[in-house]
């Protein structure tokens, strides 16, 4: 079954993806970007948010646009593309606000349900330990890579 997504403009290397979130009254430009960790170039941070005028992204706000399911599906598609182009890398992400946390937990939950056979999913605990992801457990951050 096909899930609704937005059309995505993407970089050739799979590190940057932009799309328009279309609401009843306005359109918001959003971006999903993958930034390497300075100390480990095999791990990338997934950052997602509205594109600011200066080209940075707002990593805290979640626009209330009644299109959360479409946005969620679109972000997940960018993760698939990232891994197709960068199969040896892994991706980490955390919510910088409670609403953003909910969004990322929903992404991980969907990936876990739909593609657990493809992905290794790890949970980063608040005590500084990393473990295999346990569904519905509260984590500081998540990490995902191909099995």
């Amino acid at each position, binding site marked *: 079954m096909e899930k609704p997504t937005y059309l*995505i403009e993407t970089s050739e290397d799979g590190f940057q993806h932009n799309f328009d979130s279309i609401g009843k009254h306005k359109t918001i430009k959003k971006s999903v970007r993958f930034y390497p960790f300075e100390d480990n170039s095999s791990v990338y941070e997934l950052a997602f948010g509205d594109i600011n005028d200066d080209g940075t992204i707002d990593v805290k706000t979640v626009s209330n646009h009644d299109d959360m399911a479409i946005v969620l599906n679109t972000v997940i598609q960018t993760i698939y593309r990232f891994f197709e182009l960068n199969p*040896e890398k892994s991706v980490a992400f955390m919510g910088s606000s409670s609403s953003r946390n909910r969004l990322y937990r929903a992404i991980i939950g969907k990936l876990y349900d739909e593609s657990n056979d493809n992905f290794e999913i790890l949970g980063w605990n608040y005590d500084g330990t990393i473990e295999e992801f346990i569904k519905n457990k509260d984590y500081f951050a998540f990490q995902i890579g191909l*099995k």
Partner: protein
Amino acid sequence: METKRRLLKYDKSIFTVNPELNSKNMPMSNEQKKSHDLLNNFFKNAKKKDLE
């Protein structure tokens, strides 16, 4: 690596490559830099539990 690539099925038709987008053109706000550094430091010091 090819084995891993074959496992991924997603809707490629929704993607259009824009040559103006690339990893060198992804500025970070101060707010974003803070959370990026936080994640980076966490990972640097993290201990993996029961992962073989």
